[in-house]
Structures are given as structure tokens and as C-alpha cells.
């Protein structure tokens, strides 16, 4: 403990604890490393499923199959689109509602908060939501990824409490210059809220990128399936696209799907792994704000 700032002997506890922490890191990182190594292995090697620290025969064959697979790449496109559109819509919509709610002189504010709180305690659940989506024409539509997740009360509260910390004097000077409420929001408040915007955007983006459940439940057409739902089908249901089957026949491996599965998994995870070191502090900040409010 640095803060006690006193020199102390390094005992057995310190050694054991450090080793334990290293073990935690290993257990956390090794599964991803395993996928990376096997996706870079030649398909025949990967099919053996043996534990390797490095690829035995370095090969990009599986990646070339994954990147040439039109269905998979379409899934990649759908996922990218829903991540970008879904995040922008969620942040804009939620922030606008939150700005209105952050004003104490807003008429009906208490009523609006009560209406919102009830939704935290009760909800319809899977079947009523499914019926609703069907009736709204959102079943098997791209917008099912965007509209039902464009707002959450939780993120609204995070935005709202942040907006309340912005000094009134900033907003007032703009008002004196004749700016409307929307003008103040877009020209003064949002540019001063970049930290909270970053946090909420990242949570929303990670949700959209990783979600496979919406695709399983609400999407029927192949060309609207997000990448993660495709992965679910490839991994859990063992279904293969036509391209993959052809590729497998070509490689003629014993359990040929493995390296292609791993390469597809890597393609779906790389964006998260690449950005993770840069974004993780925003993500932690987000859970802190959430914890204080909740």
C-alpha cells in the first residue's frame, strides 16, 4: 500500500499475492491468445486443438477465407452500421431528453421522473416485446437494432447529473446573446460534456458490437444478420456458410472448421481488442458514475 508509505519487508504474502494476480492475468489473456494463435495456424494444425504458445505453421489461409466470405462480411457491415448509427442515435436522443430534464423549472418534471422510475421496477419481458416489435413492423428490419435501444433511463440520469454540474453562468451568457435552448445545448452544453459523451458512446458501441441476442430473436433474413449472430450460428449451431464449406473441402482437414471459426472470432473481436487499451478508462469512469447514482 503506497499510501501508507512505509518500508516493509516483502513477505510470503506479497509473493503469493503477486503470483495469484499474475495467474488471474494469465487466465484472462490466455483464451484470447489461444484464439489468435489458432487462427494464424494452418487449418490442419488448428484442427488438432493442441495447446501452442505460437503458431506451428504460420498461415493466413483462415483469414483469407473469412474475409472472402460474402455472408460473413455482410454481417460485419451490418454490425458496423448498427454500431455507428445506434450509438449516434442513442447519445443524441438521450442527451437531448436529459438536457430538458436537467432544468428544475421544467414543468411536469416530477411526473416525468415518476413515469420513468416505474419502468425500472416493472417491465413487459420477452413475449410482450416480441409482439410489440411485430406490430410496429420492426421484426426483421434493420431498425430493430436502433429504435428499441435509442434511450435508457439509466444513461439519461448520467447525462442529466453531468449537465447539472455545468455552471449556469456559461449558459446564461449564451442566453443573453439570444441563443435558444437548443442553441445552448448544442453550442455550450454538449461541447463541455465530452467526457460523459465518450463514456456513454463507448458503452453503447460495445453493446451494439457484441450483441447477438437481438439478431437471434428479431432477425429472420440472412442479409440482416449481425456478425455476432452469425458467429453464434457458426459456433453453437455448427452451421457453415456455403463459402466456408467450400473452403473446408479445399483444405481437407480432419476437423476443418476450427481455424475458420477462430479467424471469424478474431475478426469479430479485433476492434474491441485494438481499442480497449485506449477506451478502458472511460468505461471504468462510466461504471463509477452509474454506481454513485444507482
Amino acid at each position, binding site marked *: 500500500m503506497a499510501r501508507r508509505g512505509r518500508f516493509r519487508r516483502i513477505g510470503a504474502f506479497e509473493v503469493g499475492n503477486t503470483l495469484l494476480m499474475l495467474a488471474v492475468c494469465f487466465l484472462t489473456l490466455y483464451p484470447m491468445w489461444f484464439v489468435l494463435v489458432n487462427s494464424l495456424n494452418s487449418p490442419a494444425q488448428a484442427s*488438432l486443438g493442441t495447446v501452442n504458445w505460437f503458431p506451428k505453421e504460420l498461415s493466413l489461409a483462415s483469414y483469407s477465407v473469412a474475409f472472402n466470405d460474402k455472408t460473413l462480411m455482410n454481417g460485419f457491415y451490418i454490425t458496423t452500421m448498427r454500431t455507428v448509427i445506434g450509438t449516434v442515435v442513442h447519445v443524441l436522443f438521450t442527451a437531448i431528453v436529459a438536457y430538458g430534464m436537467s432544468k428544475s423549472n421544467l414543468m411536469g418534471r416530477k411526473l416525468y421522473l415518476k413515469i420513468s422510475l416505474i419502468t425500472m421496477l416493472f417491465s413487459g419481458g420477452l413475449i410482450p416485446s416480441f409482439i410489440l416489435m411485430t406490430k410496429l413492423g420492426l421484426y426483421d428490419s434493420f431498425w430493430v437494432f436502433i429504435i428499441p435501444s435509442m434511450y435508457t433511463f439509466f444513461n439519461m440520469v448520467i447525462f442529466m447529473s453531468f449537465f447539472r454540474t455545468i455552471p449556469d453562468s456559461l449558459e446564461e451568457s449564451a442566453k443573453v446573446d439570444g441563443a435558444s435552448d437548443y442553441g445552448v445545448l448544442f453550442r455550450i452544453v454538449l461541447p463541455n460534456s465530452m467526457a460523459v459523451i465518450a463514456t456513454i458512446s463507448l458503452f453503447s458501441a460495445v453493446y451494439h458490437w457484441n450483441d447477438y441476442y437481438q439478431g437471434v430473436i428479431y432477425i429472420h433474413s440472412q442479409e440482416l444478420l449481425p456478425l455476432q449472430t452469425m458467429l453464434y450460428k457458426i459456433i453453437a449451431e455448427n452451421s457453415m456458410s456455403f463459402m466456408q464449406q467450400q473452403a473446408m473441402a479445399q483444405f481437407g482437414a480432419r476437423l476443418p472448421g476450427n481455424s475458420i471459426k477462430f479467424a471469424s472470432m478474431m475478426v469479430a473481436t479485433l476492434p474491441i481488442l485494438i481499442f480497449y487499451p485506449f477506451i478502458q478508462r472511460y468505461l471504468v469512469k462510466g461504471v463509477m458514475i452509474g454506481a454513485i447514482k444507482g
Partner: protein
Amino acid sequence: MFQYRTEQMKALVRQWQLQSMVIPGIIWMFIFCYIPMFWLIIAFMDFSIAKPMLESPFVGLKHFQDFMTDDRFWRSIRNTLGMSTIKLVLGFPIPILFALLLNEIRGLRFKRTVQTISYLPHFIAWTIFGGIALNWLGEGGVINQLMMAIGFQDREILFNSDPKYFWWITFFTDTLKETGWSAIIYIAAIAGIDPGLYEAAELDGANRWQRMWHITVQSIRPTIAILFILAVSGILGSNFEQIFMLKNNMNMKMAESLDLYIYNMGLVSGRHSFSTAVLFARSIVALGLLLLANQTSKKLTGDSIF
């Protein structure tokens, strides 16, 4: 009275911009939260999705009686409670222990690196994480190789298709994926403890474990209580994304949780009213559990959510 109303109307008109910001949010909530609540009423009907709701006949508690006499429903209750209990009894203390031990690490840089790495899996999709688990637990997978190498088993075990392993697989994969993330809140609570308390305890001759127990654990007790209340009230829920990924036809009899049962009955078999009856009953029991857990915690520890 009339005067007062017109004043209010004028004020409302003056703040039309603010109102126009908030009202879309209220409309969204009305459509996506309140209408589904209203649709719960089909639990008492023979609803068909092709017809308008009001044309469906009321059948009273028929669907409730049906699921109460369905063995598969009770099996799903058993599976849900089994998995939740393991998670609660064995899983709940793990992030607390991790936070306590991480707090004892002196090197600030090492501590931060371990923490950053520990919550990485939280951001990996269940498709990926579950995919790795299925691969490792499968025939010729890493787990079988490891167990045979250290002599714990003499032949391959098909962990994925033998139902008796399913609960434990969900427990271990969940622990691996979420421990670091769940620990964040405890780590934050520990960071807020007054360092003076530790110094005082040290002067009084308290050893490491005594400090850990009497200062750290006691200081974060309210956090622990709140998370415990939430965990207990969520006992009838399960991690659908996880179970859906790891289940298969062979392990279904231990894998079908209440969530999965509702999904299978409602969306696979198309029994919308029946499934909604199960949903309805569950949300009432869950609300009761939340209140019960809250009261119990208030009595025992003085800490509660409301």
C-alpha cells in the same frame, strides 16, 4: 382557478423548447416500456398474433394452471435456482476477495495493469467467450488435455454434452468473464476509505488480516449489502446470452433455465399467452423477493436500497 390555469399554460408555452426535448423520451418510454406491460394481459387470454388483441377470448387462469402442472416448468425452476444458488453462494464473494487482494498489492503500476486486464473479458462478446469455452471443453480440447496430463482423468470427458457439468460450466465461465468487472465497484469503495483508519489500526497492533476484516470489509459493507440484495432478487433470472450459447440438445435438461423455457415455449413453439403467464408470475415473485431481501438486509445489517 381559471386564472391559475392560464398562467400555467403560458409558462408551458414559454418553455416549449424544453418540453419538446423531454416529450419524445416520454413517448419512447410509453411505447417501449408501458405498452409491453399492458400486453402482459394476454397471459389471461388465448392470444393469436395474427388477430387484434381484443378479439382473443379471455380464459382466466388457464395458462397459469397449465404451467403449474408442467414438469418442464418445474425443471426450469430447478435449473434456474441451481445455477443462481451456485452463483450466489460461491460466486458472490469472489469479486470481493479479488478486490481485497488487489488492494494489498503495493506497486501502483502493477495493480493498475492487473485491474485493466481483469475486466477485459467483460467486453468480449458471449459468442466469442462461449465459443472458446465450447472448444476447450470439447473432445480433444484444452481442458481434457490438461486434466489427462496432470492425471485427474484417464480418458476424455464430453463436458459439453453431459448435462451434469452444465451448471458448473456456467459458473466457471461467468466467474472468468465477470470477476474483474464486478470487482470495480468494491475497488472504488475501498479507495474511498480514510487512510487514517489503517494507520490507527497499525499503531494499535492490528495485523494484515485484522485490518482487512475490521477496516476494509466493514467500510465497504453497505456496498456489499446492496449488491447482495440485488443478487438475491435476481435469483429467478439467468444470463440468457451465456446459457443460449452453451446449451445444446444433449444438455438441455440441466440447461433450460426459466428464461430459456419462456423463450422456447413462446417463440419456438409459438405459445405466446402461455409464456406470458410464466413471465407474469415470475415478475411478481421477483418483486416480492426484492422487497424480502431488502427487509432482511435492513434488519440484519441496517443497510438497504429503500
